[in-house]
């Protein structure tokens, strides 16, 4: 698994029962927000039941990454977040890991998401080469089926990992 990469990392692929609809129809999403969220092709989703928390939470700096993606997304790419504005909460964890959190993305928007996240790492963190990142991507194909890709490892592998995800998503 790790032979094409310089540093060790975790990369898992699994089938997912989640897609845009399953997230948008969560009970904590107000009915009036659902129509807007249906336009998303990149959707940040929360952790549910995180450490016995009763409310859904997002990893630290999700708001920052979300705004960066919104500002830089090209026309036709709609970035949104699966929570009402007033219910947004962040959890700050212990380690210096850069956590992009969980993102649901349509297969067609995946290359754009990769470029946007890479640009964020370059501009905001100046590719802190000694840092690790953690991201969970659920890639949804045109028939609404989702596949989940979890990556935790060095920043420098990120582009190669997304290329791997793209290839796996095409199969």
């Amino acid at each position, binding site marked *: 698994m790790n032979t094409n990469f310089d540093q060790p990392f975790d990369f898992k692929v699994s089938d997912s029962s989640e897609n845009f609809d399953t997230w948008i129809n969560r009970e904590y999403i107000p009915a009036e927000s659902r129509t807007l969220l249906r336009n998303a092709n990149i959707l940040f989703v929360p952790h549910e039941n995180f450490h016995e928390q009763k409310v859904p*939470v997002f990893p630290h700096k999700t*708001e920052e990454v979300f705004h960066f993606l919104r500002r830089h997304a090209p026309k036709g790419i709609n970035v949104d977040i699966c929570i009402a*504005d007033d219910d947004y909460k962040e959890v700050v964890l212990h380690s210096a890991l850069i956590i992009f959190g969980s993102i649901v993305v349509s297969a067609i928007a995946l290359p754009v998401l990769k470029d946007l996240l890479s640009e964020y790492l370059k501009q905001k963190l100046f590719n802190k080469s000694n840092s690790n990142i953690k991201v969970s991507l659920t890639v949804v194909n045109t028939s609404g089926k989702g596949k989940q890709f979890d990556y935790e490892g060095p920043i420098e592998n990120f582009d190669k990992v997304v290329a791997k995800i793209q290839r796996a998503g095409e199969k």
Partner: protein
Amino acid sequence: MDTEAIKQFLNDVHQRHKDYDYTKVKSVLQELKRGFVATNKQDEAKEVWCYEQTINAQKNFMEAYKALKQEKFYEAWCILEKCEIALLYLKPHFYQRFSEYSLDFIENHARMLQSLYPYKLFISPEMLIHHYKCSICDQRVVLRNPCRHEVGEIYNGEMCVRIIDGIEFLGSAFVTNPVQKYSVPFLTDQQTGKTVDPYNYNLVKFLIEKLSTPFDDWSLKWTKKLHPHSKFKHLSRNDKCPCASGKKYKQCCLNKKGVLMDHCIFSIPGIEGCEERIL
């Protein structure tokens, strides 16, 4: 003192390492920034901010060196952390000029100094953040209706950061790679209540004794070296393996040719064959 004089002053950092009083330069910069902000010269105000951060990095690096010379190891550790943070903020805005003000030297050498410390475990909190405010406009951050300020960018000569407005402490944990490295665990003497420092600073001491200035161009290389079992005769089979794997000696290196340990090779100007292993 004009901008050119300030640049020259910052550029000459390695020549005035014994006298690093930045008070005058700082007040000149503050005055300059006030003027630029008043006339909405954003680029110029940003440049002043970059010089202020450069000062923070240079000053902290020299203060860390001074603390190390006085064997105030934890104090030096905290100052190096401040130095690292100043460089982290500055780098995206000032990368092209890092070598001009010895900032690349400071970045590399601060990192190498940190790697010599025995601190491997830190205490880190877990928190739930309810709301944020923008440090520039003081507005509450709203997901779908944010203010125009971007975190990390410079406005009116100040960096935009998030101010936490509502926080809940959830717990703490021991971690090896913390967000901030200040929280080093120490022991407490049960009888006197005083803090006890149980760490072995031999590697840092070994280096710092040989340096004459903070800008001596030393370097180091981490490798592995095999040590014969005869060196560890004082250990029993059930003791922890000296390779620091955390396993028992008998379940780790005892069945191998020797004990593979981290090994540090220093290169210090004017000193030949300078090497030391982790003790």
